[in-house]
């Protein structure tokens, strides 16, 4: 859309539209295009290609540096996975478990979703496929009790990575957000430094509500990173730029399918490039 063009108003409009259609959000998009205009004037840019390159570098800058997972050998690392309903938490946990197991670490899963129909069964099937133990209680059990038991069991068995699944929940439900805070507290009380990672899972098809999700979940639990799932669809996931403009919350992984191998380390350069495909 851009090659060999001169810089004019319609080009700025096209770039703004590209951002909006990618779910970057109207306000973040307007801000980006505004600062693009200033920079283009300052740098006396003359062609469309250099304008596009400048926008890419702005977007890249917004994402910050890739942040590795806080997983260290020789200790029990605890990862808690949170997010609203249906975004891909349980499946992401299976993918993470697969990845850490391949790296030679001992992994265990905790079925912290004690509410939804067949949630523990879903995680157990993944555990069987991955040959990874799953600690669960019955339906309706207290998720904090599951986490408590899982940490004890993980310590006893010399587990390196304990990944805690939690029930999907809307950030508008304060009792459920309090339940999440309690799960995190219990993990911290029972294991030094835990949870080492609290990952918020965001569905790439989500619009502006993802910004509210990141903000509100962050008020209840200490988020350490984002996982952006379902990037194998047609959604661009531009919502991460809107989130990045409000808080530092690095994207650590991208989900690209429903299988245990469908997880990629987040590559910010590749992500920015893909926005323009």
């Amino acid at each position: 859309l851009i090659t060999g063009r001169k810089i004019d108003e319609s080009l700025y409009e096209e770039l703004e539209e590209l951002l909006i259609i990618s779910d970057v959000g109207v306000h973040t998009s307007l801000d980006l295009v505004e600062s693009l205009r200033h920079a283009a004037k300052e740098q006396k840019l003359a062609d469309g290609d250099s304008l596009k390159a400048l926008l890419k570098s702005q977007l890249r800058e917004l994402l910050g540096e890739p942040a590795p997972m806080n997983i260290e050998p020789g200790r029990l690392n605890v990862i808690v996975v949170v997010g609203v309903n249906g975004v891909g938490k349980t499946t992401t946990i299976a993918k993470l478990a697969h990845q850490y197991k391949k790296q030679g670490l001992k992994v265990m899963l905790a079925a912290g979703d004690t509410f939804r129909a067949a949630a523990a069964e879903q995680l157990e099937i993944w555990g069987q496929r991955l040959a990874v133990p799953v600690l669960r209680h019955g339906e309706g059990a207290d998720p904090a009790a599951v986490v408590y038991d899982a940490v004890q069991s993980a310590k006893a068995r010399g587990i390196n990575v304990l990944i805690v699944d939690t029930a999907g929940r809307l950030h508008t439900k304060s009792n459920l957000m309090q339940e999440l805070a309690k799960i995190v507290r219990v993990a911290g009380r029972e294991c030094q430094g835990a949870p080492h990672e609290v990952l918020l899972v965001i569905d790439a098809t989500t619009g502006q509500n993802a910004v509210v999700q990141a903000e509100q979940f962050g008020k209840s639990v200490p988020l350490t990173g984002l996982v952006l799932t379902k990037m194998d669809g047609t959604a661009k996931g531009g919502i991460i730029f809107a989130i990045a403009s409000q808080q530092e919350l690095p994207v650590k992984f991208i989900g690209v399918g429903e299988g245990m191998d469908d997880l990629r380390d987040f590559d910010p350069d590749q992500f920015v490039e893909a926005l323009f495909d």
Partner: protein
Amino acid sequence: GLTEKLQATFRRLRSKGKLTEKDVNTALREVRLALLEADVNHRVVRDFVAAIKERAIGAEVMESITPGQQMVKIVHEEMIELLGGTAGRLQMASKPPTIIMLVGLQGAGKTTTAGKLANHLRKNGRRPLLVAADVYRPAAIEQLHIVGEQVEVPVFSMGDKLSPVHIAKAGLEKALRDGRDVLIIDTAGRLHIDTELMQELTSIKAEVGPHEVLLVVDAMTGQDAVNVATAFDEHLGIDGVIMTKLDGDTRGGAALSVKAVTGKPIKFAATGEKLDALEVFHPDRMASRILG
């Protein structure tokens, strides 16, 4: 919300004298921003704003002593019209069973909605049968069995080794044998760009001939809603839409996008995780919500 923004805009514009068409365009920009913030698809926004411009430059707004309020009234009315034009009822078949098929992206809420529909129909005196046609997702069949138990509706399943087409067909035969008058088929979540899985839906449809193919859409979906709805409608053909997770605080602009691009009615609004959280869709409530 939008009302306050437009009132402020018009106060500023009117202080310079009589309103002009250019002033209305300035105000319409506020409407565009509000709709984009609410996740309405940008093309749908452009068409919507163009459509209301006619009324917006009429005497209704230009000669009103409260032009801001008038414009909001127009936006509201036009949006309600767009969201709810055609009747949103479930079409019951003249010869039972009525066959309902739920489709949509992964995680949209199909399985839960299947339970809610079964619950709603049973409470209205029907004899529904749920069919577990998701053979891919771990414990999907078990999930539907638990849901069916919770709403006291039988669930037909054949494990995960047979094709969903075969299972749907066998489910229909079971309904006929047992005198069940509504068949609700839960299908696996899939991407609209997955050719093979979209073909599977077409095969199920060809095999059992559903009276209602309902696209289940997560209310927090962003710009992509248009791609998904268009693809499902073009490849498969849908009869209606169910918006889920409306108990959250998402503005829900996807509802307007989906309705605008397919013309298919939004029949239900799902408003919670419990199996009684299903209501008939209210276009006026949705319009107020989108406009914030």
